[in-house]
């Protein structure tokens, strides 16, 4: 199959099917309702399950139940809906279940607006629910990448027995671009008989499985948390992904930007280069784990004079960038968060001001 022109939302739905996930529970919310609309037609064609839940809260527990039963499962939502799911996500992390959540972010706080935003960065990367846990978070910058990351999310969720999040924004969901589905990203689910509550007969076992997050003994709960932490540490070792743009040049300014915002920054980098100002960019493809070392090394480049975190939020990723730069350079922030995506011209003007 060659390229097809698809909306990001549709591509995410199709990618999940291609990845071998045939179970989808969801609740509609703009700007990601197309995923549900697409899958409500598409999943029955492939013998899959589509169910619209009564709320995002309920959906998060349908996901939990299906994941506990050992099946691949995912859902999609947007910022306010993800907040409602955060309770279930916390349980899923505590129970060490694999599941995939897609957040097509919109502006907030509160009802905010339906236009694109990256306002849930901290929520996604620092602790989306109660308790000590992390999600593995991937941030696509194109429809193609949204599809690929969705496909990769399932084996990663199973590898770590942890929820994985695709952190897109309204534009990634709504934009159409050509997309190609690569069959080599299709994976078989791992054997889950060791822990899934899929019925003893299914496993041919007389040992029952128990799935819980309740540990009354404080020492046992501490051990459980250490076990979780070890997984997050391992993600730091094995899962960091990023793209480096124009990093071989003698860049004076380093941009760190992800998702839709990084596309805008890329145009700015190209135009500034044409004008004779070299600008480098690190584009995190995983925002947890964050490419701390790559950003730190790039910031230490000998010609680098300033670092800018450019985001569609009020300096949320900035904290990770500052942490990575470790004081070696001044770190600046530029962004907007009302649904309006900063234009290349605005980014150019800001970067020029840093280079002066």
């Amino acid at each position, binding site marked *: 199959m060659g390229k097809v022109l698809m909306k990001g939302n549709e591509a995410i739905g199709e990618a999940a099917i291609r990845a071998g996930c045939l*179970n989808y*529970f969801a609740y509609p919310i703009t700007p990601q309702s197309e995923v549900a609309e697409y899958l409500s037609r598409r999943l029955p064609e492939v013998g899959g*399950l589509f*169910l619209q*839940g*009564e*709320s995002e*809260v*309920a*959906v*998060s*527990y*349908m*996901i*939990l*139940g*299906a*994941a*506990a*039963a*050992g*099946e691949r*499962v995912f859902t999609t939502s947007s910022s306010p809906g993800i907040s409602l799911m955060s*309770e*279930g996500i916390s*349980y899923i992390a505590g*129970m060490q279940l694999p599941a995939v959540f897609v957040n097509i972010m919109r502006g907030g706080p509160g009802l905010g607006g339906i236009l694109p935003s990256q306002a849930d960065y901290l929520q996604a990367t620092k602790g989306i629910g109660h308790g000590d846990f992390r999600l593995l978070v991937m941030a696509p910058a194109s429809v193609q990448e949204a599809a690929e990351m969705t496909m990769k999310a399932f084996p990663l969720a199973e590898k770590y027995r942890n929820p994985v999040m695709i952190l897109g924004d309204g534009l990634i969901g709504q934009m159409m671009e050509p997309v190609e589905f690569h069959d080599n990203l299709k994976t078989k689910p791992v054997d889950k008989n060791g822990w899934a*509550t*899929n*019925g*003893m*007969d*299914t496993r041919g076992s007389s040992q*029952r*499985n*128990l*799935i*819980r*997050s*309740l540990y009354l003994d404080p020492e046992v709960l501490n051990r459980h948390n250490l076990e979780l932490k070890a997984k997050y540490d391992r993600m730091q070792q094995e899962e960091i992904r990023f793209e480096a743009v124009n990093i071989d040049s003698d860049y004076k300014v380093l941009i760190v930007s992800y998702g839709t915002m990084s596309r805008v920054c890329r145009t700015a980098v190209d135009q500034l280069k044409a004008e004779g100002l070299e600008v480098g960019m690190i584009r995190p493809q995983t925002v947890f784990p964050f490419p701390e070392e790559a950003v730190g090394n790039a910031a230490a480049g000998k010609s680098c004079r300033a670092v800018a975190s450019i985001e569609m939020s009020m300096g949320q990723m900035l904290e990770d960038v500052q942490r990575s730069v470790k004081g070696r350079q001044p770190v600046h922030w530029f962004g907007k968060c009302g649904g309006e995506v900063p234009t290349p011209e605005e980014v150019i003007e800001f970067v020029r001001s840093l280079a002066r």
Partner: protein
Amino acid sequence: MGKTFAKPEALSDQHTHYCPGCTHGVIHRLVAEVIDELGIRGRTVGVAPVGCAVLMYNYFTFDFMESAHGRAPAQATGIKRVRPDLIVFTYQGDGDLASIGMSEIVHAANRGEKITTIFVNNAVYGMTGGQMAPTTMPNQRTTTSPFGRNVEEVGMPIKVSELLASLQTDAYIARQTVIYPKHINRAKKAIKKAFQYQLDGRCFSFVEIVSTCPTNWGLTPVEAVKWAEEKMLPYYPLGEIKTPDKS
């Protein structure tokens, strides 16, 4: 006699943590007996609530999972929809099911999820220390209704079974109790019927069990049984409230 008192295979050896006079132990046993009798232990998944029965998974010998407060029916939906061959039940109290989880139970029932719910109604939040529940009786004193449930302020107790029965989707809905030995057989029959409807792929099935909480009611076990009989049963009448066969 010996046979009746043998421990069901579905029940573990562990002693329960329940207070003297609490009916959870009896209801657990009935569920276990039914699962044994239907021969479905190997394909049953239980969903435990938040409430006094939060640790109930310790007392059974088949697959079990914990749920968050009120969410068990959504979770059971998730399991059942992806594995329709499994037998899935939730076991919930009145705070869990009728308050924080009202939305989940209503929609699971209305979708006609082929799951079974055992609903233990003792008119009080047990776990958190005897606070008012949606099913607390008028004028009943609890730690958050110290002057008695004022129905002018907080409304009448919710009759969950009747509420669910009003949905137009097919369902099996029954209310029983286990406060006196004479009730226990009827309760077990209702539970068995509920599981049978699920096994047959028929409909959502729901059994409410009117129960006691001597510790939080501040009554002796004997008094608690009397209180349930005199105060609760007239308001929460026993029997089959809805069957799919009648609709």
